């Protein structure tokens, strides 16, 4: 049966058909839908873990138990999971262990565009790169087989365009999970120096075998034509190449670590001029250069090592013209009308404090309210940055703003640290009980009392406020800033992404056109002609009404 699946759904389907027992992950665009597609399926335990490190360690535990396991994350999530990853290649696996990582070239929904393939080289694990859904399904199944055959975790690397584009796949049956007995084997699984040194040597042997396997891996495909030019490519770039220059010879690599060096050399001999086309880092290109093979790629400065590639970029590159693509800043994304956090940032913009933000949709406030967020770095960074800032600059005041999902992901250690080292920062937790930006998934702290946790850690002042009482929010923030010690405000409000419209109106008779209401920057408010007006996207939160001196908004 043929079905239209996204790359992410195809990975989930592939894992399901491969008999996966456990799937873990932390939501993050563009990887989110893999765990969503696996939850609720028979025979699969799927969870949103507290963070990616936890997710990968859960998967490692299931693999030790002899079961097939999948850990899913976006590229920056792999940074959090890098610690277990670097040593998992030493221990190897019990049941097949696959790490699906989705990169975001062009940063549609991320803070950087790191190339995760470099992790595969550093961790010394095999790396597979599908280019569409049908391949995503097939390579996921293949990844589990490779993992078990070579006793090693396998990285399946996607990019946003592969994860989110839909194409037809053939649906197959789920196989029974191979029964691998649980074995107590400290020399394999306890990585203390005598053992890890032996495993390190063993890893070299496994990598050598994988290198040979890569040469004959059936998903590495050579498509020869009569043209003089040849392209080595992988992932989504293969599809762009086929559209841009349909007549050239192509070596499409599905396994890009370890690389099939003999196959590449053979291909290079069959063409006059060899090009390498890949998104982000010159990962394949550098390895080919290191073999002493002449190639044209990113070093020549035409093909960019940033952003997504496009058909026209590739065409220009292959014609070896001086064409250079423009990089347009990505301008999308706005606060939802009635977002419960608008009020917080409305106040933060004018307080004169430094505000250390975190990862979440509320980061958009940096563009909306000038001065309301001064930094955003990575998950959990805001609290520690605020504390560090205050140690270096004690005469200023600092606010750390963090969402609840991020708080549980990696914010708690930062709070513990700030408290122990007596940092007088003001902590604002935006608590909607879900991971909102990726679609409202529950997280490992959903339902827990953040107030209770902060109190138990030792914070004296923890104030809970509602999202739409703009005066109380202001009082709470100024109170915390004046307290001279680490105090917290929890702003509790439900995410409105699925809220039903409930329109309010502005009575022209009462409105004096002071336009104070527009200050809340709600996207349901419009400045039409003379009077402000409210669009059908309004959810009736009445934040704007609380700013109206004439009581004209009802």
């Amino acid at each position, binding site marked *: 049966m043929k079905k239209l699946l996204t790359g992410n759904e195809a990975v989930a389907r592939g894992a399901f058909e491969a008999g996966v027992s456990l799937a873990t992950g932390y939501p993050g665009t563009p990887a989110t839908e893999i765990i969503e597609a696996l939850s609720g399926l028979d025979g699969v335990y799927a969870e949103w873990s507290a963070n990616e490190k936890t997710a990968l360690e859960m998967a490692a535990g299931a693999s030790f138990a002899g079961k097939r396991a999948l850990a899913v994350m976006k590229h920056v999530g792999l940074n959090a999971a890098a610690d277990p990853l670097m040593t998992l290649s030493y221990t190897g696996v019990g049941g097949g262990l696959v790490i699906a990582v989705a990169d975001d070239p062009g940063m549609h929904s991320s803070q950087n565009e790191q190339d995760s393939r470099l992790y595969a080289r550093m961790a010394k694990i095999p790396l597979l790169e599908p280019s569409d859904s049908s391949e995503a399904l097939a390579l996921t199944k293949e990844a589990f087989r490779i993992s078990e055959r070579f006793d090693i975790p396998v990285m399946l690397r996607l990019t946003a365009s592969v994860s*989110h584009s839909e194409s037809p796949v053939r649906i197959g049956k789920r196989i029974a999970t191979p029964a691998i007995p649980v074995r107590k084997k400290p020399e394999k699984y306890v990585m203390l120096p005598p053992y890890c040194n032996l495993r390190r040597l063993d890893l070299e042997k496994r990598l050598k075998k994988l290198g040979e396997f890569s040469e004959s891996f059936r998903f590495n495909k050579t498509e020869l034509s009569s043209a003089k030019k040849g392209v080595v490519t992988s992932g989504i770039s293969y*599809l*762009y190449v086929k559209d841009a220059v349909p007549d050239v010879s192509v070596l499409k690599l599905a396994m890009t670590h370890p690389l099939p060096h003999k196959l590449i050399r053979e291909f290079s001999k069959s063409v006059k001029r060899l090009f390498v086309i890949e998104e982000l880092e010159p990962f394949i290109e550098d390895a080919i250069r290191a073999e002493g093979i002449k190639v044209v790629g990113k070093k020549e400065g035409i093909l960019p090592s940033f952003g997504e590639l496009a*058909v026209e970029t590739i065409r220009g590159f292959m014609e070896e013209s001086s064409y250079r693509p423009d990089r347009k800043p990505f301008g999308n*994304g706005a606060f939802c009308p009635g977002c419960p956090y608008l009020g917080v940032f409305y106040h933060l913009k004018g307080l004169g404090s430094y505000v250390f933000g975190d990862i979440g949709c509320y*980061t958009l406030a940096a563009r909306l309210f000038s001065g309301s967020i001064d930094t955003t770095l990575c998950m959990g960074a805001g609290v520690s940055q605020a504390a560090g800032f205050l140690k270096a600059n004690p005469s200023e005041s600092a606010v750390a703003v963090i969402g609840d999902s991020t708080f549980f992901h990696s914010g708690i250690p930062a709070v513990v640290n700030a408290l122990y080292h007596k940092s007088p920062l003001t902590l604002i937790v935006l608590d909607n009980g879900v991971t909102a930006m990726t679609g409202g998934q529950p997280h490992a702290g959903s339902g827990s009392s953040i107030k209770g946790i902060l109190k138990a850690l030792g914070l004296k002042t923890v104030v809970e406020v509602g999202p739409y009482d703009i005066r109380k929010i202001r009082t709470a923030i100024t109170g915390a800033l004046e307290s001279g010690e680490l105090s917290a405000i929890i702003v509790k409000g439900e995410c409105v992404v699925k809220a039903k419209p409930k329109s309010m109106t502005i009575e022209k008779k009462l409105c004096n056109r002071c336009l104070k209401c527009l200050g809340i920057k709600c996207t349901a408010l419009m400045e039409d002609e003379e009077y402000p007006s409210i669009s059908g996207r309004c959810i009736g939160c009445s934040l704007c009404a609380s700013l109206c001196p004439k009581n004209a908004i009802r």
Partner: protein
Amino acid sequence: MKKKAANIVFSGLGGYGIITASDICAHAALYSGFDVKQSSLKGIAQRGGHVISHIKFGSKVYSPRVEAGSADFVVSIRGAARGFLSTAGVLIEMKDAEISQYGKSVNIYALGILSGFLPFPKSAWFRAIKERFGVPKRGAGPDMLEKNIRTFLDGRDLKQSAAR
């Protein structure tokens, strides 16, 4: 003559069902025996702003993305992505009157108009629409399905009378 391969861009403001319309169209292509690819934006790029989705169908489709200036059709509801339209391309843009007449179903109406230009049999469209609206667990049901089929046919008829 109806094309055997085409690039389509759906574009508009969030909340108007752009992705739903695109999704139905992609399935109609699949059920008509074409190779098809569809891509749309997710994550923070999706928040409260502009929504865009690309479809390519034909006997064999490689890249899932429609290049600027290469769309045969742009379907838009409040926010046209004209930059995608090829010189001979067709812009199907919903007017304010149509948006207020069809409300939440304006996406299906636009899809009906588009269907008149595409080589997919009616049965393929109906199957795709049924799968989207005929499933009770998605908050839809027989009423919803019937209403959407009617709206779809309204659009399809409009295209046919315009062609005459």
